[in-house]
């Protein structure tokens, strides 16, 4: 796994190059026209260094007994930096032996100075892998170092032993936040001797989660100061553009970056794959899903271990069903195809991981859940069903194939989304692009205030103390006014009977997960968990919910109790939610306007509603029915950038209102993709809507493919000629915003210019999913071209304000 094992790969991999090469040759022969780009990364030999001379003999012994005779150059580099007391971030590919970078200095300090270390992993599963690995080294060298996990599963009677006897405590940020810091006195001994804090999978700490974690680390360092310790941080990350910057933001101090891997790497081949066009007029291509299953079938039949990544949990289930229909038809034999995603129970996930390591599963279909360092052994082929949304995420997933020096193949199959199409049509852009920046905003006001609350509970604030980028005394005064703090002399004391960490979730604004309960046969068995944000679009009554491609139907959703009761069913269809969004502008922060059009940034109120769902038949993907959904609206305040055109300019440009509406919806669709690419965020981090800005109406695309105005209740309305000011909104999809709208406003002209290029250069005639969104066959008959309308709207928006530059 993470130990360098230079002698193994050549032997194991002996037959693999032929198989992978044969598969590639076959795909190229049969599907030349679908492969739009190709990249071959040649194998790279390892760079090695001897063990450091001061490495404890017991550790040398442990490494020898595991067949390790030397280190990779980056492991040695990390040793030197960490031993010199510098915060260090290590950025190297999967399976390059990252864990030794921190295990060696930590074990050395534990052996020689009884120093303690805290390891933080984003998930419990990773913690368990880690402890297993340390224990193995421990046994090998009879080190006697005690490593324990401390998380929600740690039994009450074991906790005291972990606190007082653990040399290495392995936990996660949530547990640190809710279980350790608020009880720091119980950990006094641990904190007094804390020398190292290890943060693995650092790249996962971005956006909202990262902003929370940065604040938890502020609290951790504050507690360490109280106990007189100042630990060295060792961080590890998959490839992102700014590992050093992110590390420095997370721990608020200078960090040494080590990003040259000395680990050997097998040859890798990457294909960009565009499904064939099946309706040139509408620009409709065969589905990515069909291509992905086809490639996976070839790979598995060639005897190659294959992993498929999809964008949604739903698609995991759909693809699993299709591949099980091929490979697991005989129920008496152990399954060759397995699904893996968030929401499955831990035991189910562990079982799949174990089977993957053992090589008894041939194909696994997963969401980003397997992107992390979960140990699943070596895989040969990785197929991405759709562009993961970021360059970094794409490489991370592709990194799942080709561990341990084996040659590997990755295939990126494009969907008809504009981002995907942009990528496969411009292979040079993708293959040459640098990965994204991971952004966090630790001073986002709501997040910061949450953690000031928690920090005040942990230790009284003293006058002159600092915490975060806002004026602390002002924040404390606010909390005093709110009645949870009390100022006395130089101090601010927690004075409330609550436990604030319990009401702050690091992962989202989510108020608790939903459990999915199977009531088939009168039982009550929990079969899955669904997070709060996904619940409205996956657990509405009537929804088909799938686990390992077996369908259950939701009978009853207890929203308050966070429970969905499901029953096994035999459906030949799956369900997909229809949701819509409307916005109201609350306040302008900045604006740029001139004749006829303007762009602004400010505060908005967003309401999202799930109105119903579609039933979609397997294989044909026909729409076979609709259902209604009655759920509470999801509301939030956030920041947005919006673009508007004066009604007079609009009237001059369009004959009819619905043409203008089509134009706005198409323009918004294209602008959304371009904005995500330019701000280097994921599509879902930005929300998109078209409306009037007052929340009185918003536009949706109806089943007939036509734009329609709807009232706040979702009823169709015909707006009168007054005050028809359609507005394109792109909003930061998190309450309060995480800092996306400001860079987006700065990029406002580039967004329009990029959208224009995207639409104009698209090969379709009247519009397609790759530029302005899906359109219908009747479009031409209707006498308008959504593509032309979108271009006209983009030009109107671009003409208005001073920052305008011609595309």
């Amino acid at each position: 796994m993470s130990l360098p094992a230079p002698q193994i790969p050549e032997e194991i991999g002996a037959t693999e190059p032929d198989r992978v090469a044969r598969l590639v040759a076959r795909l190229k022969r049969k599907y030349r026209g679908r492969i739009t780009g190709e990249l071959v990364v040649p194998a790279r030999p390892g760079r090695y260094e001897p063990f450091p001379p001061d490495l404890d003999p017991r550790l040398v012994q442990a490494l020898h007994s595991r067949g390790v005779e030397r280190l990779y150059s980056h492991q040695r580099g990390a040793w030197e930096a960490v031993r010199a007391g510098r915060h260090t971030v290590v950025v190297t590919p999967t399976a390059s032996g990252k864990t030794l970078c921190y295990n060696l200095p930590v074990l050395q300090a534990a052996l020689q100075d009884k120093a303690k270390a805290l390891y933080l992993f984003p998930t419990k599963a990773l913690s368990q892998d880690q402890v297993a690995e340390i224990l193995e080294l421990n046994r090998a060298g009879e080190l006697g170092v005690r490593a324990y996990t401390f998380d929600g599963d740690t039994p009450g009677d074991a906790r005291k032993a972990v606190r007082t006897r653990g040399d290495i405590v392995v936990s996660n940020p949530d547990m640190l936040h809710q279980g350790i810091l608020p009880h720091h006195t119980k950990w006094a001994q641990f904190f007094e001797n804390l020398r190292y804090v290890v943060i693995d999978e650092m790249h996962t700490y971005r956006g909202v989660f990262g902003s929370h974690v940065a604040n938890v680390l502020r609290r951790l360092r504050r507690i360490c100061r109280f106990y007189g310790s100042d630990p060295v941080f060792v961080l590890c990350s998959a490839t992102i553009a700014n590992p050093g910057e992110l590390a420095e933001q997370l721990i608020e101090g200078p960090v040494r970056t080590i990003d040259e891997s000395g680990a050997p790497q097998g040859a890798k081949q990457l294909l960009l794959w565009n499904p064939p066009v099946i309706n040139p007029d509408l620009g409709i291509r065969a589905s990515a899903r069909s291509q992905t299953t086809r490639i996976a079938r070839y790979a598995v039949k060639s005897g190659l271990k294959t992993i498929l990544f999809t964008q949604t949990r739903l698609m995991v289930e759909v693809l699993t069903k299709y591949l099980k229909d091929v490979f697991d038809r005989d129920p008496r034999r152990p399954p060759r195809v397995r699904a893996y995603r968030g929401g499955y129970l831990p035991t189910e996930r562990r079982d799949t991981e174990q089977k993957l390591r053992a090589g008894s599963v041939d194909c696994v279909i997963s969401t980003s859940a397997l992107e992390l360092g979960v140990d699943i052994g070596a895989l040969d082929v990785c197929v991405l069903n759709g562009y993961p949304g970021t360059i970094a995420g794409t490489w991370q997933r592709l990194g799942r194939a080709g561990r341990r020096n084996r040659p590997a193949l990755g295939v990126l199959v494009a969907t008809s989304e504009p981002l995907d199409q942009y990528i496969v049509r411009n292979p040079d852009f993708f293959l040459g692009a640098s990965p994204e920046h991971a952004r966090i905003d630790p001073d986002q006001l709501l997040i910061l205030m949450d953690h000031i609350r928690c920090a005040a509970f942990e230790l009284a604030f003293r006058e002159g103390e600092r915490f975060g980028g806002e004026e602390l005394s002002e924040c404390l005064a606010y909390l005093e006014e709110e009645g949870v703090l009390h100022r006395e002399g130089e101090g601010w004391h927690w004075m409330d009977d609550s436990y604030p960490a319990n009401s702050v979730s690091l992962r989202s604004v989510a108020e608790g997960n939903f459990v999915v309960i199977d009531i088939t046969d009168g039982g009550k068995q929990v079969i899955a968990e669904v997070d709060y944000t996904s619940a409205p679009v996956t657990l509405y009554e009537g929804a088909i919910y799938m686990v390992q491609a077996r369908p259950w139907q939701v009978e009853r959703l207890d929203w308050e109790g966070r429970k969905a009761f499901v029953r096994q069913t035999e459906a030949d269809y799956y369900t997909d939610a229809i949701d819509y969004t409307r916005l109201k502008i609350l306040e302008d922060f900045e604006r740029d306007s001139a004749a006829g059009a303007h762009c602004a940034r400010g505060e908005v109120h967003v309401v999202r509603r799930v109105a119903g769902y579609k039933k979609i038949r397997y294989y044909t993907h026909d729409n076979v029915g609709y259902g209604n959904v009655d759920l509470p609206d999801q509301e939030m305040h956030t920041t947005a950038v919006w673009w508007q055109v004066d009604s007079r300019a609009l009237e001059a440009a369009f004959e009819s209102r619905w043409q203008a509406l089509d134009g706005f919806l198409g323009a918004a669709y294209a602008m959304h993709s371009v904005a995500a690419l330019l701000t280097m965020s994921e599509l879902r981090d930005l929300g998109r809507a078209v409306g009037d800005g007052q929340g009185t109406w918003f536009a949706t695309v109806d089943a007939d493919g036509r734009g329609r105005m709807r009232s706040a209740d979702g009823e169709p309305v015909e707006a009168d000629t007054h005050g028809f000011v359609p507005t394109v909104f792109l909003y930061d999809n998190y309450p309060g915003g995480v800092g996306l709208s400001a860079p987006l406003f700065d990029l406002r002209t580039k967004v329009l210019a990029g959208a224009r290029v995207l639409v104009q250069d698209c090969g379709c005639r009247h519009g397609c999913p790759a530029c302005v969104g899906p359109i219908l066959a009747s479009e031409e008959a209707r006498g308008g071209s959504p593509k032309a309308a979108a271009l006209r709207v983009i030009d109107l928006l671009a003409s208005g304000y001073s920052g305008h530059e011609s595309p």
Partner: protein
Amino acid sequence: MSRLSDRLGKLRSNAPAAPQAVPVQSELGGRMQRLRGAASPRSEKDDVVLAEQLGGACIAEGVIAVGETLALEHDHGRVRLRDALATSLDALSPGGSVAVDELVFMDTETTGLAGGTGTVVFLLGLARLGPTGLELMQLVLTRFSGEAALLEAAREWVARGQAVVTFNGRSFDVPLLTARYRLKGRTDPFSALPQIDLLHPTRRAFARQWPDCRLQSAEQRLLDFHRRDDLPGAMAPQAWFDWVRRGSMTLLPGVTKHNRWDLLSLAALMPVLENVYRDPEAWGGDPLAVARFQRGRGDVAAALAMLEAHAHSLCPAGSNELARLHRDRGDWAAAVAIWRRLAAHDNVEALERLSKFYEHMCGDFTQALHYAERLALVERANPAHAHRLQRLHSRLGRRVSLPAGGS
């Protein structure tokens, strides 16, 4: 200030309302204080007024001590304190020899029940029993800055103590105090002492008899003591917050009174619990639970005596326990008599014991088979019974073919 709250207000305008800043304003004192402008930092003088109200004195900056000695003739419910002084601790303490006059009774009032370092002990009630009576010492925190002095005062007071008596202190009061001492960088005198947590013996004896085992339930049922005008414990945090924020003295006397009753009940419960463990039934307790406790401590004779004394009224589980004790000391006749009585009602354990007894002790396979067959009828699903039947059948078969001495 307003800028920040505006920004937060806007971000939150759809979130649930923030907690209200100003709590209930029912009481006159609080309103008067506000009219007088008592929102400003309170002075030493306020502490003096509060100390008077509570009947105590300021002993350090931010600390009021309320002391009192109750004569041994004082009655708390049906218990006279002199009886408490005579308690034999054997039944209650986990071992070791501690004299009653070396005990420290302890109970805290806190700013919350959640635990964690943000929970402050603002009233630490202590008491000890001696020849002169029950000596009470309540240490009240009047401001955060007094905490170190309060903790030190407590240390001096408990210095001579050899054990701490609490009600649920093992998991609540003591860990909380440990955290407070640790926060002030001091070692804590309480966790080093042996602990006698009266919740545990109470729960053991009454968990199945009472709807709950809170201190006040115990005090009503065992001491026949009923509080009048007691301030509910849940109000305690608010009482202290009102004082600290606004100088309101309205609720705090209620808290000291409440805490005083808690301490008195701790002392008074000891002799009663001792009696409960001697004769549970007289108190509506569970003799079986008490006997199991005694056996667990290695006091088999006491357990046997306990169950024999209640033999007429024991539940089947209790009878089985008694039979096991007889068996363990080799009194098979007594054990078998009990099992026979239970077996008449198809008691599974008794049937199994009898079958084993006849098979292994007497070699009477016919009798053994008889009980095994009944057992298999009562518990059809248990494969162990079928197994036993099979074994006995084969043994009987052999015995028939080898009448001379097959075993």
